[in-house]
């Protein structure tokens, strides 16, 4: 079926040292860079969250100024969304899409290099503002308006560092758009003979759909920050009511990007879980075609639900009703994907290796996040839930126990292919159970304080929220520390310490990526495999 191309390593001169990484055009090396970068940003964003949770341990201001607190919530959100989750999935796409469709590399390797190397500089610019705020003379404020940067808080009232933020977001956007173009071109042009669209692994499908979402909405984000820039410096009034502009317009533009963005961060996760569950249930994925259609309809619907983030801005009744119905509707295809996973497990022959553990935790906890999302869709009740910790709980269930857990599942699943050794079982088990317990201690009580009325982005709170906040903080520190175990697992794999992995690293694994040796050679599929 395949032509594993281990033989061609010797006739290609592979650069060594720093140059290998700096000038790399190899999809595997660039994938590795993306993944390490994503993990580094996950730790940076996590550290900022630790500052938040330390301040919220008890009522009263103990550790930081409310102003610095706002900077922490802002940069935490930006680092996690644009630094950890998005590059993490791009890293997985880089590594796995060519292997899964039998392509020798990504279609546009030099652009691939560029789209990665923009990122470290984008974040250097953004994070420099945090360093200046923490250690610089006079403590100039870092961005402090939340990751949603609503005008006019971010325009007329934004700190000087807002301009660093704007530049940085532009760079991240360029990086994402190039990454998305690369995925689309690769999938449409470099599939091996016989690999028809409806034979592609679901991870490739979900990424293809995600890439279209990215190309559609990243320019909208770029437009939003450009309008901010001209409002701030060139005398325009897009978002300034006093100049004839409209602060609510900002929210419409932002969420027209922001809601598809939510699905950008979850659709690849659907693909990962759809690869892992069949492997360990030893049974083909239930409803492959309906999974493709469900993902596509989620993507389409994601363009007509944006205003559910802004039910309280005072939209006309008809608009509010439209967005409520559309938002409720999106739970139908999402439900279909969950039911498909359960049906895949049903009457399978399951074993629970690490990737499967993470995948099942994903299905259950992501469903929790989906169900609280359905509650949030009910607009009259959303008037109470909106901007409270209930929302914070909701989106952390979909983003942490959803997107991030799926990436852990992916890492444990494909680490043998990447490194050639099996991930350390003991550390892996510890990492899983420790994360699973702490993440729920961290996020579940947020539902309670949110319903009881604690607004989000609060540096200090009323006394009835004190007990839960204490435990939320403990859960936060615990979850944060647990991730060091994952770092240890990755370092061991990178150092090739561990049990040697066979080409088909998991007994029930299907797909082209398991036909090549482990670790995957530097170049694969110089001669395309033939898919029957």
């Amino acid at each position: 079926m395949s032509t594993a191309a281990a033989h061609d390593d010797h006739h290609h001169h592979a650069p060594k040292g720093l140059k290998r990484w700096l000038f790399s055009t190899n999809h595997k090396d660039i994938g590795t860079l993306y993944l390490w970068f994503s993990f580094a940003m996950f730790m940076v964003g996590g550290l900022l969250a630790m500052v938040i949770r330390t301040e919220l341990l008890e009522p009263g201001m103990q550790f930081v100024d409310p102003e610095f607190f706002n900077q922490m919530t802002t940069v935490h959100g930006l680092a996690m969304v644009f630094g950890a989750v998005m590059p993490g999935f791009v890293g997985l796409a880089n590594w796995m899409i060519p292997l899964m469709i039998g392509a020798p590399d990504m279609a546009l390797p030099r652009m691939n290099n560029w789209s990665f190397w923009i990122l470290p500089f984008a974040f250097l610019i953004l994070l420099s503002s945090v360093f200046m705020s923490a250690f610089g003379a006079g403590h100039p404020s870092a961005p402090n308006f939340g990751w949603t940067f609503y005008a006019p808080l971010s325009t007329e009232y934004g700190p000087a560092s807002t301009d660093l933020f704007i530049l940085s977001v532009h760079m991240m956007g360029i990086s994402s758009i190039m990454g998305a173009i690369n995925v689309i071109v690769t999938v449409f042009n470099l599939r091996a003979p016989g690999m028809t669209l409806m034979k592609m692994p679901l991870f490739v499908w979900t990424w293809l759909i995600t890439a279209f979402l990215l190309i559609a909405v990243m320019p909208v984000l770029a437009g939003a920050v450009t309008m901010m820039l001209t409002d701030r410096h060139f005398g325009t009034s897009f978002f300034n009511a006093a100049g004839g502009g409209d602060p609510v317009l900002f929210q419409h533009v932002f969420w027209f990007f922001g809601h598809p963005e939510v699905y950008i961060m979850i659709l690849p996760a659907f693909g990962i879980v759809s690869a892992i569950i069949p492997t360990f249930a030893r049974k083909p994925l239930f409803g492959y075609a309906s999974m493709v259609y469900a993902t596509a309809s989620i993507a389409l619907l994601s363009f007509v639900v944006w205003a559910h983030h802004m039910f309280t801005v005072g939209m006309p009744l008809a608009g509010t009703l439209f967005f409520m119905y559309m938002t409720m509707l999106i739970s139908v295809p999402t439900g279909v994907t969950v039911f498909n996973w359960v049906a895949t497990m049903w009457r399978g022959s399951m074993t629970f290796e690490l990737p499967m553990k993470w995948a099942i935790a994903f299905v259950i906890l992501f469903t929790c996040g989906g169900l609280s999302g359905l509650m949030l869709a009910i607009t009259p009740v959303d008037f109470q839930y909106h901007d409270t910790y209930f929302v914070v709980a909701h989106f952390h269930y979909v983003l942490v126990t959803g997107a991030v857990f799926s990436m852990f599942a992916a890492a444990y699943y494909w680490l043998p292919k990447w490194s050639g050794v099996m991930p350390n079982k003991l550390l892996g088990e510890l990492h899983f159970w420790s994360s699973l317990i702490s993440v729920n201690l961290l996020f579940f009580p947020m539902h309670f304080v949110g319903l009881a009325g604690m607004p989000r982005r609060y540096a200090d709170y009323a006394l009835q929220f004190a007990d839960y906040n204490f435990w939320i903080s403990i859960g936060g520190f615990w979850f944060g520390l647990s991730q060091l175990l994952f770092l240890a697992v990755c370092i061991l794999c990178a150092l090739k310490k561990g049990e040697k992995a066979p080409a088909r690293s998991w007994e029930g694994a299907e797909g082209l990526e398991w036909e090549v040796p482990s670790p995957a050679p530097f170049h694969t599929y110089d001669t395309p495999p033939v898919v029957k």
Partner: protein
Amino acid sequence: MQSTLFHRAAVGLISLMFSGMAVASDWTERSNENLRPGVTGVSQEVYDLHTTILWIVTIIGLLVFGLILVSMVRHRRSKNPNPSTFHENVFLEVLWTVVPFVILIAMAVPATRVLIELDDSSKAELTVKVTGHRWKWEYEYLTYQDDNNIGVSYMSNLATPVEQINNPVLAGGLFPYGTAQEAVGSEFPEKDKNYNLEADKPLVLPSGQKVRFLITSADVIHSFWIPDLGGKKDAIPGFVNETWAVVPEGKEGTYYGQCAELCGKNHAFMPIEAEVVSQEEFQTWLAQKKEEAAAAPDLTPFADLDEAMTLGEQTYKGACAVCHGNNGQGGVGLPFAGSDFATNEEHLDEHIDVLVNGRAAMPAFGAQLSPKEIAAVVTYERNAWGNESGDLIQPQDVQDHE
């Protein structure tokens, strides 16, 4: 406090499901885990919707998780070594598309009804304009029954003393109360029951009458939210949003709320305190407020520096400390302590002018503070924290200032 927490969390989860039966009408019986039913008809309907949808998602969740659990137990390799190979079933797939759709329609009907009801703010008896400021609320009474010319407005600030809020850890603030505080021996005062919720001048509303709120902002976006009155509405500069509430007679009391849209540094410190009173009490209160507003400003000079300093300190803490620091050390606003501005005679006129008319980010206080208060604040800022200018500004000086 923590030893009982797991117990409380368990009770909380259960009470979450059944709390529809016990109606907590008083904020003092605050729920720690669930939405409060509130006191208005709308808030109760919202609460019922919440309870219904919570039951629906809980049942769906338990069904799905139950299936996963059963499958994990029964369809593991040790129990089921030969996996089945089925991978589609049209009946099932249609079923789990159609059934959720029907449930959604069942949810959308009551949600739509409440939404339409909420949208109708006509026929209000009292109209109050609520303006969000960084970081306080302004209440302006516009019309009440036939009176279209009330002319009563005031600012409402956080009343929690700054000593209760600031507990820097280096001074033992990690343990601001309880036994740990005694052990460490920090000197921070205990926090009041309504910590961070109480305001100096509450929003006063009559019971049994429909109140329409016109909500806007003077600077950034805020959100006006009193949970017991059923939901929030954003305060947006350049827009006037509407919402309404009727607190039934017999439900008089104090209801607290907080700003719900990030508005900068002191977002967490601009509470809303609504005092709902009977109609007679409200009318008396409004008449008195109208009288105060119509009266000529009190221009009696201060007898001595001490009198001005006392009023000045009080006013400063309410209106100025939030930006300029409790000890004049600055913050969002410029520092006064030891500054040339607050000690040099040359800047005296300018000092009064900035307070009355505002400058750049500094808001104008001419309309919200009396000449006497402005004079006292200027005096205070020029004589406190080691500033020894000796300037005593009299109310007449402020009144004469144009």
